[in-house]
């Protein structure tokens, strides 16, 4: 993902565990020195720091002063040759100085950086989790994290610039069991229009604005597929709960993304499944494949629900690198811990992971394993064991600042290495037509066996309920 704003953008926000902080970082006001604001330039007689306020920026004088004074305390937030520093860049520099986990990467001076974006993009060369988002994009990701903006069950690729014949919007990946998957979108489909609006000429942001914004909201996609022009009615993702298995006694919960509302939604889905199953549900699959994270709080509520014990302080899944409990976890422990499920145990509870399960998903998966609640199956997860704090800059843009390591209860970091599941199903391809990993999880819960291990043939060859004799003959013959 070299530049997420141009490629594969739609899921970018899923890679975040975050805590949204407000406004600028100037909470303490700095030393009382004389500061002058004149013609958009901010100076102080006792300092070489010159700050320019962009024209048209809506910002109070008080805020500007506060930022300037804070910067006087931070050598890195100045220039060696005395060239003027953009106010937004200064705001960014101050935030990174204060919250950034990888301080060694922070530039010693601001020379050569013309903007906040420049500054963060420089860091991104070494740290993919540092991120700058312009204001128009940033607002959307905030509402997404708050559960106000839904995702679709596919990724698409688009080169820089607007949609055109030479720069088509093409579906690059479909999540199994997503609504798009059920409704028949395919990898390679070229999206031409949405709800009757042609996409040609629109920018990525304009396209995104047309996508269904609420969970479960319907939308009509006009696509071209191998020369065919098709209209496919599909819509935004919703978490789903289904009963599966030969006797419909396995509850399947798929959580596609974590928002602050995820916990409550899963409670509802779970209760509905228990009711459908006739009052009790002994087996469970939690599908976190393709879940790139989102709100840490959502993940914590879910973990706590599934782990049938109070999380003792200091051993909970959100221990941070300095040994303290993550600030978000305090809220979580205090406010969200409302329900506990009688844990079905690792022989009756499978969590499915894959390489796109990241961040908040990994927090949940690692905790469920370390507390011996669930068996993890699937592929090694993405490996994002850090959390980002999210800040709104004075101009409304946003920065995502990696600020803590997250450690699972075992204390062993999975950052970069990913979580290796108990049962690896890496050789099992997932196609829109057949979800071999899910089938393996069902088999595991029904028979206690592990139908797939590394190197075994893909389970497309599985004919399980077929007449065993005939199956044997066909296997031998073909």
């Amino acid at each position, binding site marked *: 993902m070299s530049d997420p704003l141009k490629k594969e953008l739609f899921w970018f926000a899923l890679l975040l565990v975050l805590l949204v902080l407000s406004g600028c970082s100037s909470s303490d006001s700095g030393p009382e020195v004389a500061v002058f604001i004149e013609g958009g330039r901010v100076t102080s007689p006792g300092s070489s720091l010159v700050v320019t306020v962009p024209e048209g920026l809506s910002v109070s004088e008080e805020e500007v002063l506060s930022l300037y004074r804070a910067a006087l305390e931070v050598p890195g937030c100045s220039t060696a040759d005395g060239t003027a520093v953009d106010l937004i860049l200064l705001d960014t520099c101050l935030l990174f100085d204060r919250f950034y986990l990888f301080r060694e990467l922070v530039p010693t001076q601001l020379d050569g950086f013309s903007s906040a974006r420049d500054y963060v993009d420089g860091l991104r060369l070494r740290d993919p989790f540092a991120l700058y988002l312009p204001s128009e994009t940033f607002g959307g990701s905030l509402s997404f994290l708050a559960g106000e903006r839904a995702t679709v069950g596919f990724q698409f690729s688009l080169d820089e610039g607007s949609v055109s014949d030479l720069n088509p919007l093409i579906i690059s990946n479909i999540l199994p069991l997503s609504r798009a998957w059920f409704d*028949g979108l395919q990898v390679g489909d070229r999206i031409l229009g949405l709800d009757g609006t042609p996409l040609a000429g629109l920018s990525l942001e304009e396209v995104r604005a047309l996508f269904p914004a609420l969970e479960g909201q319907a939308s009509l996609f006009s696509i071209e597929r191998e020369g065919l022009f*098709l*209209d496919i009615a599909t819509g935004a993702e919703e978490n789903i709960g289904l009963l599966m298995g030969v006797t419909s006694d396995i509850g399947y919960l798929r959580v596609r993304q974590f928002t602050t509302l995820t916990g409550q939604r899963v409670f509802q889905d779970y209760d509905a499944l228990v009711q459908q199953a006739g009052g009790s549900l002994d087996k469970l699959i939690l599908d976190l494949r393709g879940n790139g994270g989102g709100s840490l709080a959502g993940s914590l509520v879910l973990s706590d629900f599934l782990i049938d014990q109070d999380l003792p302080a200091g051993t909970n899944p959100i221990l941070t690198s300095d040994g303290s409990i993550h600030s978000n976890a305090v809220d979580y422990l205090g406010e969200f811990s409302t329900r506990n499920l009688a844990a079905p145990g690792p022989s009756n509870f499978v969590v499915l992971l894959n390489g796109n399960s990241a961040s908040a998903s990994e927090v949940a998966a690692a905790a469920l394993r370390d507390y011996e609640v669930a068996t993890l199956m699937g592929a090694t997860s993405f490996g994002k064991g850090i959390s980002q704090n999210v800040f709104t800059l004075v101009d409304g843009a946003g920065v995502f600042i990696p600020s803590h390591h997250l450690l699972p209860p075992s204390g062993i970091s999975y950052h970069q290495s990913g979580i290796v599941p108990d049962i690896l199903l890496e050789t099992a391809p997932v*196609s829109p*037509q057949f979800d071999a990993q899910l089938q393996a999880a069902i088999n595991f819960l029904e028979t206690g066996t592990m139908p797939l291990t590394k190197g075994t043939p893909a389970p497309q060859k599985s004919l399980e*309920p*077929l007449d065993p004799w005939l199956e044997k003959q066909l296997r031998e013959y073909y």
Partner: protein
Amino acid sequence: MTRKIVPSVCPYDCPESCGLLLEVEKDRVLSVTGDPQHPHSRGRLCAKMLHYERTVHSPERLRTPLLRTGAKGEGRFRPIGWDEAALRIAVRWKGIMAEHGAESILPYSYAGTMGLIQRNAGHAFFHRLGASRLLRTICTPAKEAAWSAIMGNTAAPHPDAVLKSDLIILWGINAAATSIQYLHRVKEARRRGARVWLIDTYAHATAAAADEVFLVRPGSDGALALGMMHVLVRDALVDREFIEEHVQGFDELRDQVLDDYPPARASELTGLPIETIERMARAYGSVKGSMIRVGGGITRQGNGAMTVRSIAALPALTGAWLHEGGGCFFGTSTGAAFAMAELTREDFMQKPTRIINMNQLGDALGKDDDCSVRSLYVYHSNPAAVAPDQNAVIEGLLREDLFCVVHERFMTDTARYADIVLPATSSPEHSDLYRAYGSYCIQRGRAAIAPVGQSRSNRQVFSLLAGAMGFEDAFFRQSDDELIDHLLSIPSPLREGIDTAALGEGKAVELRVAPPGVPFATPSGKIEILNPVHREPLLRYIPPHGGALPFSLMTAPSPWSLNASFYERPELRELQGGMSLLMNPEDAAGKGCCEGQRVQVFNELGEVDFMLRISEKIPRGMLVSEGLWWMTQSLSGRGINALTSQRLTDEGQGSTFCDCRVDVRVMKQVEQ
């Protein structure tokens, strides 16, 4: 939304018509299981239907009507609405009818769905239109003609009869692919002590169910039957008493026919050793409870009807028919259970219109004269893939002046050549009434989910087209369920005593059919080995069409597909392992080909590429390709039917797919 279990029926063209239980939620079939209470299938399903939901909700399903925007066959379309589609069709047809007459319009369908209502949905419409009629003889009319010639209207034994057999002969049938419920009974009988033989042209998967496998040359089965009869008579292994009372023409057979088929001649024709034929005859003659199950491919030869008529004479000689587990099973006939004329409405025809044989579609489309076909309407069939002489069919479909409409669930080979493509429902999306040709079960299936996308059932489309054409007959305005109710309101002796309440609830019920026995349902009351009114009154060996090329190509069924159906399912395609050709190791060595190599099979009709698989199970001189791959999935853009001919069977005007001579050449490796 609650989840429910809905009984249904497998709609595909297979003798078994297995009972399904659909797990349905929110207009989606979540899973499919076999109905354990189904009298015939008893919960078992084949590998294809175990995941029928993957077909129903396949991402490949067509969802809107489409109008061609590219060249014919290019597959470029744009979506249009149903009203526009109907209007365009009606305008074109009215123009064609005014200029060339309605008979220049030809419907083409077969058994993509077996339900009576949807399968026959177009008959009334096209009769009313005055279109040409299609002679639907692509499957096994030769078998039906043969049965009728010797057994008249005698009913087939109940499929369970085989459980009481002592010797079961699976003759020309890969039951593991085409009749799994019957095969299950065969296995059960074998467990109880029955011996099982397989007689076929290659040792396919069903060989595993047999104690002995006898491989004969394609098209020579009739000679084997005559050779066995020769031995039975010579060695006095016939049931004189049974013959005396219940067989017509035994003396003529003995005196005028069998002398020509001593084991040596039968050996020469079939390739089986003389001793083997002698041994087979003696073993067959020594038991009463012998059951012969005849397949379909065996009849798709130039001599198909006479072949199976000769086979059907065997139990007449041993008197096996008097034994509970004895006789011969060609398939059940349940047509009389329903008043089919109420569906097909021949009375809508103003005058008898011309009839075109569906096996000769290539010729029909190739005609360029006053009576050429100007419009083709294809529904639940894929003639570009399934009709013989594919190159001729494609040439016809490419004609710019042919207005072609295809109503389908998927973008099939044929649909790609259409001017207008209409999306069709799958069986859980519409109501229908089902009967079987491998059992005596009937079942009513009700729509379980809403149509996928904008798809419509066959009847809904003909109702729409009837409106667009201005047909005011009330018939076209009935709903599917009203029509089913009407059919069920007309009594039939076959349906007497059935549990109508269970039928109404969607459960399978069995027709009460008396088992075959004396007197037989023929004009003489006897089995008519001599049929005096037939143009071939007695049995004889007729050679197949054959040809000069060195190999016989067997276009065989695969367990992972059914004709050209199920090719939308990637996991089934993968199980089939691609479009491959099976060849004997010595033949392969002789041609200098090796396993996995791309080879080209060719004859005077076409050239088709395959991946070569070398197998001991294929006799020398034979080539086998299982399955019926779409052109779009083939190696060279042509399927196996580019090699098969439009020639017909000796009787019944049936197809002769298995009567196909070819040669093989090795494909040069192309530098990548």
